[in-house]
């Protein structure tokens, strides 16, 4: 599968790392990539359900490009949000809707975070796509 360049870079970065602990360290570094969702905008609607930490995700369309804002109290969750931001920010809604969460698997991010597979990254990924879909309708 071919991915957009930004995503491919992330995949490459993770694939180079052997040790899971180091992978999580890198993942947490991605938390810097998150544009923070101010606490006033945390709502029930943008809460990431089923997550152990408190996490929120909001998506906007700016000039027809997707922009994601997010926040999470756990740094690893914030790191996942950072990667998601890189994957979607600035893309057209169509491009975002054509994405699949598999890239995280390919990068070894999902595998390494098995427990959250069903309710962590995927949940957030699905939320973003759902929001985008609502936004373009």
């Amino acid at each position, binding site marked *: 599968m071919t991915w957009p360049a930004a995503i491919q870079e992330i995949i490459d970065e993770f694939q180079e790392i052997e040790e899971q602990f180091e992978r999580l360290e890198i993942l947490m570094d991605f938390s810097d990539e998150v544009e923070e969702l101010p606490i006033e905008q945390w709502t029930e609607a943008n809460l990431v359900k089923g997550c152990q930490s408190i996490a929120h995700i909001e998506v906007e369309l700016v000039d027809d490009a997707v922009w994601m804002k997010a926040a999470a109290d756990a740094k690893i969750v914030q790191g996942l949000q950072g990667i998601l931001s890189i994957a979607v920010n600035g893309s057209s809604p169509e491009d975002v809707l054509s994405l699949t969460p598999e890239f995280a698997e390919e990068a070894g991010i999902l595998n390494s975070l*098995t*427990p*959250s*597979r*069903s309710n962590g990254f995927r949940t957030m990924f699905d939320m973003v796509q759902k929001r985008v879909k609502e936004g373009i309708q």
Partner: protein
Amino acid sequence: MKQDFPIFLRKVNGNSLVYLDNAATTQKPACVIDAMSHFYTSSNANVHRAVHTLAGEATEGYEACRSLLKQRYNSTRAIITSGTTEAINLVARSWGESNLNSGDVVVLTEMEHHSDIVPWQMLAERKAIELRYIPVIDGELDLDAFDVALEGAKLVCVVHTSNVLGIRNPVEKIIAAAKSVGARILLDAAQAVPHEMIDFQQLGADFMAFSAHKMCGPTGIGALLVNDTAFDEMEPFMGGGDMIQTVTLEGSTYQTNEHKFEAGTPRIAEGVGWAAALDWISKVDLQQHHKRLLSIATSIKSSLQERGMTVYSPLGPDDAAVVSFTHPTIHPEDFARLLDAQGIAVRTGHHCAQPLMDKLGVSGTIRASLYLYNDDSDAEVFLSGIDRVLEVMA
């Protein structure tokens, strides 16, 4: 197919096992047994709300069972229970308690398994609801009586396929009629899912209960499928861990998905085992086996009749391969023990359906029930086993 089932390597009383007690429980293929062992030796952990690797694997293993159930039976909801019986009790407590009131009518049939009678009798006592039983006439539900009984009915509970006689009831008609009066409908599908594919949404029932152990899965686990409308009408049944959203001393709020009805540590290894069984059975052509087994059962039936026995199973084209019979003089227990001495397992007794027994005018029958791995040679051994019994006893 027998080679998939390690139990057939064992001898019973010096003979190869001929297992004809499948309506009670089925045997398990090696892949199911191995899946559970493998779970315990490599992924065992408690599920949900945990972030370590084993817990994640356990959660996925358990939830995979739910996904497979939803997929196979085309249902939006699959609540995991300990079996058919708990699933029906769940409906009685979660739905019945809060949606039925004094004077409301629940329609049952005389063909029901005790598990689909007693919960309603208990509910009737608590809520003063009225129970109406559709009579069985010559082995068939009296559909005319059903139409009358439907008057004012709020819920109809019907066994899809009878464990005693193998009769597959006309559930499509029954559901249509029940729906036309706005009644909810519960199918006891314990004997149905092992034998035929069911599209739950298309069939249109509101609830459908069944057990893993009757379809090559493990003991201790079953499911209740529910459609979205009925699901929203259900109140929690058991309280505890995993089914709550928040707990304070003042009160609690509940999960909104199936977990709401799965209090406490779930049947994790059992879910993994059932998932393996669902996977295994998805590769089996149930329809073809149904034809094959029904034809074996039919020939067993005529052989038994030739030998002077009374056979109660009509064995119509859609019925399950179950042959219930009695001998005019030999006691079922003697019969079954003499068969067991030859390695042949059948069941005797009322088969948890005393009202049906009363209707048939017997205290019990001998029941030979067939499943996927049974073949012509089993029928042969069974019949020659019968002959040996008759030689000695008759």
